[in-house]
């Protein structure tokens, strides 16, 4: 930025409009990039937040319903047949995976059921892990924005203050009216960073604990189901 430009921005500054849009438009290019990036990050964060909230809520309801039907005494074969085409949630996926393995062993006419329990456990563990991973997907974005957002905003602020000081130096005028718009504009970057970061952090914490709870519930179900299956194996074998 050559001094003439700086001087011009400085001269223009006092009469500039101080609305938020005005602040954005008169900011330095780098500060603009920072602000735009932070706004995009905020949009993305909120998209993830909305998505996850819907996902978790739906999953919890589906699990409740599934557990109800599972423990209602309905035949597991029937349940399997109704779900096998499209297991639409995590618990159903575990159930279907285990049942498939069970059926395959039986219908294949395996001579020994010694390894079956182990195989079932393994299949269910893998499914649980896959489902938990699906739940956790994109949570890392929230964590990143939550921790890096303020820094990015701060970078924009520092840069803005730097340029506004350059303007002061070039215009040789230190009245507050010259300094203030540049600083206000620079601080705006930090404000956006915080606006993006605060919900990201809060919802990251909330979602992590929810994922943990759901994972625990899935594992509990897997263990219970494994116990039922191994009892069946012992009875038949």
């Amino acid at each position: 930025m050559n001094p003439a430009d700086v001087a011009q921005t400085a001269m223009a500054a006092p009469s500039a409009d101080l609305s938020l849009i005005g602040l954005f438009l008169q900011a330095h290019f780098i500060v603009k990039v920072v602000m735009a990036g932070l706004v995009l990050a905020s949009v993305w964060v909120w998209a993830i937040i909305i998505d996850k909230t819907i996902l978790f809520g739906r999953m919890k309801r589906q699990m409740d319903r599934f557990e109800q039907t599972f423990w209602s005494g309905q035949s597991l074969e029937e349940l399997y047949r109704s779900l096998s085409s499209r297991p639409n949630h995590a618990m159903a996926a575990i159930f279907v995976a285990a049942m498939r393995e069970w059926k395959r062993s039986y219908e294949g006419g395996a001579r020994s059921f010694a390894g079956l329990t182990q195989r079932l456990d393994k299949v269910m563990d893998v499914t649980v892990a896959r489902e938990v991973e699906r739940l956790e997907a994109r949570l890392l974005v929230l964590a990143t924005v939550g921790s890096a957002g303020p820094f990015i905003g701060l970078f924009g602020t520092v840069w803005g203050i730097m340029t506004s000081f350059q303007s002061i130096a070039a215009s040789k005028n230190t009245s507050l009216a010259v300094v203030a718009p540049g600083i206000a504009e620079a601080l705006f970057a930090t404000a956006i960073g915080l606006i993006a970061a605060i919900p990201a952090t809060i919802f990251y914490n909330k979602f992590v604990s929810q994922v943990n709870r759901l994972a625990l519930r899935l594992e509990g179900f897997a263990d219970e189901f494994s116990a039922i299956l191994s009892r069946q194996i012992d009875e038949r074998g």
Partner: protein
Amino acid sequence: MRAGLVSSAVLHIGIIGFMAISFASPNPYEIVQESMPIDIVSDSELSKMMSGKKDAPKAEAPKPVVEKIDKPKQAENLDAKVSEKPEVKAAKEAAAPPPPPPPEAKPEPAPQQQAEAKPPEPKPAPPQPQAKPEPAPPKDAESMAAKPPEPKKDEPKPAQAAQAAPPPPPAPPKKPKDIPPKVVQAPPKEQRDFNPNQIAALLNKQDPRRQAALGDTMNSMTSLGATRGDANSLSQTEIDALRAYIRQFWSLPAGGVDVERITVSIRFILGPDRRLQGVPQLVEVQGAGNPYAKVVQETAMRAVNLAAHQDNPFPMLRPEKYDTWRDLTVDFNPSMLNY
């Protein structure tokens, strides 16, 4: 995911649009101008600092300077260090005599007697007298020290007094300066007389210290300030008030020529009660060649006396700043009265 993205984007656009409308432009501050009493602080008041220690607590009252000097306490042993702490009693104190002295100097702890006994002592063991101040000045020197000639002089140190006091024993061969003064007082330091009435003193292994015989301040508390600061001073308001006050009493007969060139500086000392102490002194007269100068000088002197002898003299001087107005020098100029 798409639903989330879309709704989030809509949300942001909505918020930004709302902000663009509702925070369109910040309201300018209303600048209210209030009238305010202003005390003009003189430059010197800002640039000068009270003297003191940096880590001392902030004292409300400045250290007032000792005004009257009492009869100085006699220092028995001038070689000992001065301390501000309560007196330390040590048995050593008793024995001050030089090594060669006659036996009567040796005995009991009557230092005064002993000191008196010494100066007239005519036959000096070579290293002894004159070269340095005697441990204690004789009586007449004391009384001189007690009444310093000027009220100004705060601290006639006993050492000075001792030097001033010439006990002129005629005989002694003038051996003087090259002999280190220690020779005399060193040996007796080790001696301790056992006096059962002074057990506490005997148990105390400290070297005896003499008390500061005279203080230069009455308040031994150190106050907060810079180590090299010198003073605070009157504020401009107080100076103006003082000037206006004295002007009331200054009546200058008209009729001089070039009177603006004449300036008379008069210095006077006030007590804590704001009354004149001693006589105002003429410090300097500028333009003394002018025949009118004499008149200016006399009327100014009269003005000071008159001002100081009112019922409530100098009402603008506050007691907590006594330090600053104790010693005042006022310039009298016929065109204006200057502080």
